[in-house]
């Protein structure tokens, strides 16, 4: 106990693994298809970053670690272990911390998954996206639905009981029927958590060029039908929506992601990883070569009080429980109505938000047009 207290404290830790078998056509995350040598060099640099640059962020032990990507699952399991060891040597990681890793179907075999489990990883997030092989192909995913079933089975064999499945709606060529079938298939597997995203066509991806005139994508009515079906079907199957795109069996909400929305401090390691220490945001560059050479320089953005208040609102309102007025006052020593009074009134009046006791949260319609709601909270 005494030894542990010498270690650095920080709310959460994120580790970015920027490698994939192949980049999907819609993906705009920082990720590359690389050979083993590059991967190994990357992990060397990553561990150096942790050892040399670990820093405190908050007066609390580390409550969650998240290996995201890319596809962390394609890395050699021992590299992941090296990273975990390095983290544990620098940080006080709670014994009951949530430690997640992202996998893609067919990216990790049973043996590898067992190593994860024995190393203390206790949550797995699998990118399925769709149970329809034709849709997977359109997305440029390097796996089939059967590959997913095998991985899902392996994950359970290895003893994981906290598992997320990613699915997507509004895909090119997707019908309401095929999406309902994905929903149905996934709920029958009874994962503890489901992330359901509506496809966003991001600039700079092959999809952007392919679908810039919206041809081939479901029309607005169809897209909305899928969107509303998500909440209904998942709700009936016992999943609570706790964030715009996230559903969980009660108690299995992702602690790591919730931390982002509650503005808990987090330290991100690796290429393009972001960090937040409570007052400043940091962003690692995204040049893989530079990173491997040991350049760990991060861009720092100091948040003004106005920035922080806006973040409090637009991050907090992403959660279905919304924000707490008392917490706003506690953090900013100002009454929320003194800062956002007329806006809150207007948004209540137009049915975008609701106020119940201490809570303010988005209505269903507010969720649909949340960008419009959020943009108004920016104070500059």
């Amino acid at each position, binding site marked *: 106990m005494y030894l542990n207290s010498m270690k650095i404290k920080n709310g959460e830790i994120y580790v970015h693994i920027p490698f994939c078998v192949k980049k999907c056509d819609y993906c705009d995350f920082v990720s590359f298809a690389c050979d083993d040598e590059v991967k190994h060099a990357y992990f060397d640099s990553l561990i150096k970053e942790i050892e040399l640059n670990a820093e405190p962020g908050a007066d609390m032990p580390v409550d969650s670690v998240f290996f995201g990507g890319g596809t962390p699952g394609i890395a050699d399991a021992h590299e992941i272990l090296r990273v975990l060891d390095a983290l544990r040597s620098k940080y006080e990681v709670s014994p009951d911390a949530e430690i997640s890793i992202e996998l893609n179907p067919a990216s990790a075999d049973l043996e590898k998954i067992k190593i994860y489990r024995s190393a203390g990883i206790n949550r797995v997030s699998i990118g399925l996206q769709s149970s329809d092989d034709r849709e997977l192909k359109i997305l440029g995913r390097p796996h089939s639905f059967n590959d997913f079933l095998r991985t899902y089975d392996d994950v359970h064999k290895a003893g994981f009981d906290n598992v997320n499945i990613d699915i997507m709606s509004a895909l090119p060529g997707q019908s309401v029927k095929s999406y309902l079938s994905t929903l149905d298939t996934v709920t029958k597997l009874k994962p503890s958590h489901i992330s359901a995203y*509506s*496809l966003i066509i991001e600039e700079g991806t092959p999809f952007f060029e392919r679908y810039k005139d919206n041809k081939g994508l479901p029309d607005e009515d169809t897209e909305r039908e899928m969107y509303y079906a998500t909440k209904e079907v998942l709700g009936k199957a016992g999943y609570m929506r706790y964030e715009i795109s996230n559903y969980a069996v009660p108690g299995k909400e992702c602690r790591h992601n919730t931390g982002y929305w509650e503005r808990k401090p987090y330290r*991100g390691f690796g290429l393009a990883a972001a960090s937040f220490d409570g007052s400043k945001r940091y962003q690692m560059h995204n040049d893989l070569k530079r990173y491997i050479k040991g350049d760990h320089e991060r861009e720092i953005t100091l948040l003004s009080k106005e920035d922080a208040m806006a973040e409090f609102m637009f*991050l907090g309102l992403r959660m279905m429980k919304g924000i707490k007025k008392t917490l706003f006052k506690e953090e900013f020593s100002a009454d929320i109505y003194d800062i956002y009074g007329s806006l809150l009134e207007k948004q209540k009046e137009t049915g975008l938000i609701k106020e119940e006791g201490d809570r303010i949260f988005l209505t269903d319609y507010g969720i649909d047009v949340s960008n*419009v709601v*959020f943009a108004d909270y920016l104070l500059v």
Partner: protein
Amino acid sequence: MNQDHIRNFCIIAHIDHGKSTLADRIIEMTGLLTSREMQAQVLDNMDLERERGITIKAQTVRTVYKAKNGEEYIFNLIDTPGHVDFNYEVSRSLAACDGAILVVDAAQGIEAQTLANVYLALDHDLDVFPVINKIDLPSAEPEKVIAEIEDVIGIEAEDAPLISAKNGINIDQVLEAIVNKIPAPKGDSNAPLQALIFDSLYDSYKGVIVFVRIKNGTVKKGTPIKMMATGATAEVVEVGYFGAGQFIPCEELTAGTVGYITASIKNVRDTAVGDTVTNAENPCKEALPGYKKVQSMVFCGVYPADGAKYPDLRDALEKLQLNDASLFFEPETSVALGFGFRCGFLGLLHLEIIQERLEREYNLDLVTTAPGVVYRVHKTNGDMIELTNPTNLPDPSEIDYMEEPMVNAEIMVTTEFVGSIMELCQQRRGRYKSMEYIEATRALIKYELPLNEIIYDFFDALKSRSRGYASFDYELKGYERSELVKLDILINREEVDALSFIVFKDSAYERGRKMCEKLKDEIPRHLFEIPIQAAVGGKIIARETVKAMRKDVLAKCYGGDISRKKKLLEKQKEGKKRMRQIGNVEIPQQAFMSVLKLDED
């Protein structure tokens, strides 16, 4: 120098037939300028002109030529603007000359503008001699063009120099022809001063630099002068002539010469083009003929995109007006657009040039309203008002009748396109006057057209219907009674003043419908449904709806995304700031200009 050894002339040509290139060659092959000093095109030195390939502001050059007879001659080459918007300015430049070189493209032959300018030159008693340019083009047909010039214009063209201005072929023949075919000026240097203003330029040190052709008399430093039309008086500070791109002072300007005068004049409006400068103490009997007060033909509202830039816009307009007496502006306010100016222009090209200069040289973001012409509104009480802003139209019950300006238009086109051009004129409410065949394959079509119908995109439409072959010229004919109505646009049931315009009654439905369709595309979806309506006299004639927004979500928002997503939200908020708020609808600036593009698709 003796008047016998002066030649005052200009070059007239259709756009792209090689006027500026020939001018460059003449300057190059005569004195006062080395090849090294030559810019690509010495005469066209404004960026904008270079890009559009047209000459906007007339410029003038004095050069010295040693002829084959061994004598030296002074050439005053007076440049003329080459667009119908600037017809009056062209006519004043011509009046400063004694002769003109007509440049005709050996492949293209005569165009409507060529004809219009030649007739204008002949009207001013200029001796015109032709030059056939671009003879080195494979498609050149000099014999055909020579015959055409003789047949159509009726001037001698048999011994016209066959040249290539671009490649410097036979330019010496042009120089000799200038000496031999253009008459020397005839004026009396001892008579009272009588000088024609053909251009002016504002210089922050010297004040207005007045470009003049001395018809009679002499002017020098200290001469008290008077502008006969504007009545402005001043004492001459400096006189001189035009080097290429510079002003070279001299002792005096005598009859027959072309040069400049400065007299600490503050405003170009005092030195109107076409006015006569005389000696205030010894005035000439009468002013030179042809002076006209410049009148704006096309008006539109010009507003700063950012309301705080209103003073900057005013400063910029004032600065532009220093050099452009034909630019008119007065303050106005719009409910939709805030504080701005109603500006008057010679034509649409002039409007576009000013708009571009404001944006480029003065770094202003502008919102302009639909350009319109000046309508005459005759009220039941006998009053007549000249309407430049549709919002000022009196209540229909007070209107007896309205009139709109008409033009005489001449369109020259190859015979295969006659049908489609006539159809276009018909659509634009044209009244057919006549058609003559210039030669077997080309016709000159004459129409009377409402000015309102040609200010937007008539020229573009002509070009596209004739695969670029039609050429076009027009002059104002006068006013005619017409059935006109004001078309109003309502957005979310609120009338938007900046979108109103005057339209011919029978076209109202069509334009209203197009307008609604266009606005539907321009206005972003809001959280509520927005009806867009077109109305005439309170009666809705067309409607479109911008559907309510149903989705605007960031699906993912992870730790690494927060800064990026925040930027996205900032962009969204910034975009909103740049919009105009009408009631609770935010309208992008672009929407106000969409009326300009109604016929594009």
